Structures are given as structure tokens and as C-alpha cells.
């Protein structure tokens, strides 16, 4: 009898405990946080993760999109493995002259533009930092204009300045007795033009980040340096730069990613020409995938940005972490 009583009790307790457990689950901070973040998670899943995996899937297909593009004749892999790898498009791209041209141009474009944006942003930030507080807001606002105008719009204005036949710059140059410059017709000048426009658009971002970093450097450090007899260059080298290192690294990483994946400036200004000499990964992917109707190959080209940027991100973030630990 006692057994029977004992055996009938626990279910009752469970029945009473269930609502409390559910309530407790929903009252947990982590659950509430998860539920509040859920819309964002769904958004990221729908607009970032799903398209990324879909792009990977597309890149494994043949042009007709009805079968898988298996790899063939790999010299560095046994045939058994090679013929079961669905990266035929990537293998094909490695054999194309234009692909390597695009790799070179993307690196040249991103590295040059980021270096000059950082340099210009650093100089501008110092200028603005030294302007008396009263007039500083106006200058900050004006210098941010290139960054806040949609690049596709501002690049249209640049297009008119660089137009092959009616360039405003050439009008001025010829007026001053110089020769016309083929801004978008010659490979070197076309690359210069797209990089210049990218610097013009992106430098204000660096400026505002560096300005924020500059404002957070304690004045006492400069005072101490001045007492020690440090000149202007030594103050920059031994005080300003070390204090801004992390911001410089993060800004450079962020800008490298955005610059590497740039589409609008090149698309509007040169469309990749002349002779494909200004194509970047994104513009060439669009050319192949949308204009050429080879969506799998276009998807493959766009995916090449991922490993290159991942390597850059790992190095820069590792460096920041190491410095953080040292501190």
C-alpha cells in the first residue's frame, strides 16, 4: 500500500512543476535575449546566410545549371577524389588569363585605395582636431559629404569629369596648354581614376574614425612628451600612433573588405574597361553571371573574395588580440 502511495505521487508533482518550468524558461535572461534577437537572427539568416550558401551551391553547377561541375584532370589530386569535387568552375577560372588579371587588379585597387584613404584620413583628422571647437562641426560635416552621398550618384558626377570626349578635367588641361588625358581609355589612367574616386568616397570614414581616436588620447601624454623634449614627429610616432593602433587596424580591415567588394564605382565609371583592365571581383562576377548568362561562373568569381578577405581578417584581428593581451 505504501508502495502504491509512493508510486502515485511523482506524476502529480511533475504535473504541478511543468508550468513553473515553462514560466522559468521564459523568464530566463538568456531566453528573453534570444527572443529579442530572433528578428535580427532571422533577418541575417534570410539576407546573409541563406544567400551565401545558395551562392556556394550555384558555384558548383555547370553553366546549364542542370548538373554538377565536377573537377577534372587534377595534377595534384588522385583522380578518384578529383572527379568527386564539385569545384569545376573554380578549376576553370584558374586557367583564365582574365581571372588572374582580376585578382591582381582587385588587390591593387584595394591595397592602394586603403593606404591612401588611411593617409588622407589621418591628415584630415589632425587638421580637424586642431580647428577650434567652435568651427569644428561645420568642417566635420563638410568633409563627410563624399561619404554620405550614395557612391553610384557621386560616381556619375565623376564620370562626367572623366568622360572620354567631354571631360571637364581635359577642358581645363587643354585650356592651360596641356594634352588631353585618356582618363578612362588607357589602362593606367583608368585604374588611377577608379582608385581616386574610391579614395574620395572613403577617406571621410577614416577621418571620422581617426578623429574619434585622437580625441580619446589623454592630453597628459602629450604634455609629458613635450616636457621630455619630444618634437612634432616624435609625438606622432611615440604617442599618437600607438594610442590609435587598434582603431587604425580595425578601420583598415573594415575598409579593405568594403573596397575589395566594391562594385558601383567601377561599374559606373569604366564598367571594367578598357580591355577588362579595371574589373574587380564583383564587377566581373556581374559581367559573367548576369550579362553573360553564366550564373554559376559568376557565383564562383564572387566567392573568391571570401578566402582572401578571411586571411586578411585573421591576421589583423589576431594582431589586435595580441596587443589587447599585452596591454
Amino acid at each position, binding site marked *: 500500500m505504501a508502495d502504491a502511495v509512493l508510486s502515485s505521487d511523482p506524476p502529480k508533482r511533475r504535473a504541478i512543476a511543468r508550468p513553473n518550468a515553462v514560466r522559468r524558461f521564459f523568464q530566463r535572461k538568456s531566453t528573453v535575449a534570444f527572443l529579442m534577437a530572433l528578428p535580427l537572427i532571422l533577418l541575417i539568416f534570410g539576407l546573409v546566410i541563406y544567400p551565401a550558401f545558395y551562392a556556394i551551391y550555384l558555384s558548383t553547377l555547370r553553366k546549364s545549371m542542370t548538373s554538377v561541375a565536377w573537377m577534372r584532370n587534377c595534377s595534384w589530386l588522385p583522380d578518384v577524389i578529383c572527379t568527386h569535387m564539385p569545384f569545376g568552375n573554380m578549376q576553370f577560372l584558374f586557367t583564365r*588569363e582574365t581571372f588572374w588579371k582580376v585578382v591582381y587588379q582587385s588587390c591593387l585597387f584595394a591595397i592602394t585605395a586603403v593606404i591612401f584613404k588611411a593617409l588622407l584620413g589621418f591628415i584630415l583628422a589632425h587638421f580637424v582636431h586642431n580647428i577650434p571647437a567652435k568651427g569644428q562641426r561645420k568642417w566635420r560635416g563638410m568633409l563627410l559629404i563624399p561619404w554620405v552621398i550614395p557612391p553610384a550618384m557621386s560616381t556619375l558626377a565623376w564620370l562626367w569629369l572623366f568622360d*572620354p570626349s567631354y571631360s571637364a578635367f581635359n577642358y581645363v588641361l587643354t585650356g592651360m596648354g596641356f594634352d588631353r588625358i585618356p582618363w578612362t581609355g588607357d589602362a593606367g589612367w583608368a585604374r588611377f581614376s577608379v582608385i581616386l574616386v574610391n579614395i574620395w568616397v572613403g577617406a571621410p570614414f577614416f577621418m571620422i574614425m581617426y578623429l574619434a581616436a585622437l580625441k580619446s588620447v589623454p592630453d597628459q601624454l602629450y604634455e609629458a612628451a613635450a616636457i621630455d623634449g619630444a618634437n612634432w614627429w616624435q609625438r606622432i610616432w611615440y604617442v599618437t600612433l600607438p594610442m590609435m593602433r587598434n582603431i587604425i587596424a580595425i578601420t583598415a580591415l573594415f575598409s579593405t573588405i568594403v573596397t575589395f567588394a566594391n562594385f558601383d564605382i567601377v561599374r559606373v565609371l569604366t564598367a571594367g*574597361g578598357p580591355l577588362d583592365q579595371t574589373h574587380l571581383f564583383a564587377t566581373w562576377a556581374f559581367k559573367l553571371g548576369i550579362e553573360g548568362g553564366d550564373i554559376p561562373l559568376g557565383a564562383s568569381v564572387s566567392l573568391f573574395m571570401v578566402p582572401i578577405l578571411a586571411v586578411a581578417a585573421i591576421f589583423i584581428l589576431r594582431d589586435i588580440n595580441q596587443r589587447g593581451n599585452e596591454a
Partner: protein
Amino acid sequence: MRRQTMSRRRFLAATAITTTALATPFVRHAHAAGKLSIGLWDHWVPGANRASTEVAQAWAAKEKVELTIDYIPSQGNKNLLTIAAEAQAKSGHDMLAMPTWWPQAHAELLEPCNDIMTQLISQNGEVNETVRYLNRAGDKWLGVPATIGSQIKGPCSRIDLLKQHAGIDIQAMYPAGAAPKADGWTMDAYLKAAEACHKAGVPFGVGLGDTTDSVDTAGAFFLSFGAALVNAKGELTVKSDPVRQALEFCVKAAKFYPADAPAWDDGSNNRWLVSGRGAMIMNPPSAWAVAKRDAPQIAAQCWTHGMPAGPRGRYAPFLPYFWNIWSFSQNKPAAKSLLVALSQPDAVAKFVAASAGYDIPSFDKLTTLPTWAEEGPPKGTLYHYPNPHNHQTLSIAASPAPPKIAQQIYSQATLTKMIVRHLQGEPMERTLAWAESEVEGFLRG
């Protein structure tokens, strides 16, 4: 126990409701034939969209169809993005306007239009070989050639400048209202005229860039020499004598084009004509129409005419649009009925008039509409634009290669790149080797 009874009033109400419910599906109301969603090309010419809206909505009212029309611009390739997105999603418009290569690119996703094409051909006349090449897969018609957006990119010349500097009376060669007398309009004559105009400071404004205007002109020149990078069987023919001859000719001519021609886009040639800086461009009459508005003294000197003849014939660049029905369309019968309505001679005449002669129907019997004879100034400037005397072969660059290969050659602008590479000093055989390697890549399935 209370007995349930039905009053006379209640019986009548119930009968009326039941009858209405049963009969509703069979009543021919305002949208009895369902819904239809279509995407048409957003026309450059202001007001041209109104004509297509009127024709389509008149058909919809008559057929009791709820019609939705979206006008999709080709600027920024929005139409290509729409086509690609709908093909991937297998959902979207019932009928979509597709330019040149896209019906072939999505052939397996398109509803065959053999029934209506047979009917339209017997009514409006035969279609040209380029339309067949782009709009037929095996024995299946992929759609209906659209009047709206279809164009020939032949020469538009300055009457005064050609006469003055090259000694060519283009109006006498291509008289308004009569057949061309253009036997002397050959590649040699073109080259001499290009050289003379270049010397006079009014060069021919022919682009050598990556965009369609440049590619189309190069394509027509190549075909005039019988040059193809890939033949109809899909075999590589880059290193052949016709290709060498065509390339040599194009480079000779390119020396007389503006120095910045390799950087030109599809707007550069228009600006070249309207600004009065050149004696000739290769374009449909949109440039002339802009000149009519912005520079009437230049428009009054423009004459649209045929291409020069090469050793293998006289080829003009023709870029047709097509109206295609997706296989996943929800209302195929209504879409087909609309395509027939849009291809009636009255509707075609209305589209051509609304576009000021820009649009060209692909059917043989519809190339002599009054708009082209009457447009001006100068009167008759567009008479020869739709090729009324069939004196040139309407073609598309990169043909006769199988369309999916030709599309790659076309979109990658391989022909103009070959010209520019050789023009910039690369030896011909190196240029041909580069082109062969590029095209080999396009052959992959």
C-alpha cells in the same frame, strides 16, 4: 415538442443565396478570364509606353482580364536582373520582354509559341534569319518577336559633312521612298570616307568599348567578311583567313575613329552626333531624335541608311526584343492572346508611331509603315531604317555560333577587344591566340 417550420420568406431567401453561390463561378464578370501580369521594356522615347498600355488595356477590357503591366528599364541591366531572378525563382510575371540572347538562355523555361507564331507569320509575313536564330530552339518558337525595343543599329550620317569631306551624296545613294542605289557603298568606300572625315576633324563616331553599340558594329563588319570566331557547328574558327581580313579592316578603320573610342559606352556615340563633332555614328534613330530636340540644325542634316558591303555581303546589326511566356505562367492562354493582339498591324503601327520610328517589327510585311517615310526633318530621313528593300542582311554579332556560346562572345565583347588589342600594337597572331583561348572557355557546357 415544437415543430420546425420554414416560412415562405425564409425559403425564398435560402433559394436565392444557394442559386447565387452556385452560379457565381459561371458569371462573366469584369475579370472573368483571370489575371495576367506582364513586364514590358521601359522605352527610351517619352510617351512610347503609353501606346503599349493603351493597346494592352484595350485587349484586357475586351477579354475580361485583369492586366498588370510593369515597365522594366534596361538601364543598369534591370531587365536582365529581373529575367535572372524570375528564372531562378520560377515565379514572377506571366510574360516578360527579353532582349536578344535571353530567350535562348532560358529556352527550357519558356512556353512554346508555335501556335501563335504560325498564325502571325501567315498574317504579317516571314521573320528574318536573326529572329529565327535567337527565338527558335529546335522546332520550338520560344516567343514572339516584339516590335517594342527591336532596332537596327545602322549608320546615321551627316549629309553635309559626307558630301563636303568624302564626296558622298548619301541621299542619292539612299533616296527617300525608293530602293537604294548603293552598289558603290562598300568597305573600301567606308574606309576612304572615314579617313577623309578624320582628316577634316569630323571623324566617324564608332565606339570600340565593351557595350552593345560597339559590339554590334564590330559584329556586322566581321560578318561582312564572312568572319566568325565559332561556326554554326560550335567549332573554333578564330584562326581563319576571314577573321584575319576582318580584323585587319577593322583596325584600319579604327585608326580614323576618335582616339578615345575604346572607352566609349552606348551614350558616347549619341553625344558625338548631337554635339556635331562627327560625320557618322552607328545607332538607331534615338540619337537623331535627341538632336531634333536639342540641336535641330544637326538633326536636319542626318540621314539613316544601310551598312557598307563587304566581300561576303552587306550585314546590318539587328537587335530584336522578344515577348516570352514563362512555362510557370499562371495564365498562358491569356498571355498568348495578348501577344497576338500586340502583334496586329494596327498595334504595330501605333508602337512605331509612338516611338518616332525607333521600334522595328520583325515581320516582313510590316517594314513599310508610313511613319518611317514621313518622319523628319529632313523628310524621309528614316525611310531606309527598317530595311524596306531587304538590301542588307539583318544580323547579330557572334552569330552563327550556337546561341549560348555566341552570347558569351557578345557579352564579353571579344570582337572589340580583339580590335583594340591589335590596334594598340599587339601582333595579329598574338591577338588571335588570346581570342582563341577566350572562346575555348566559352565552349564549356
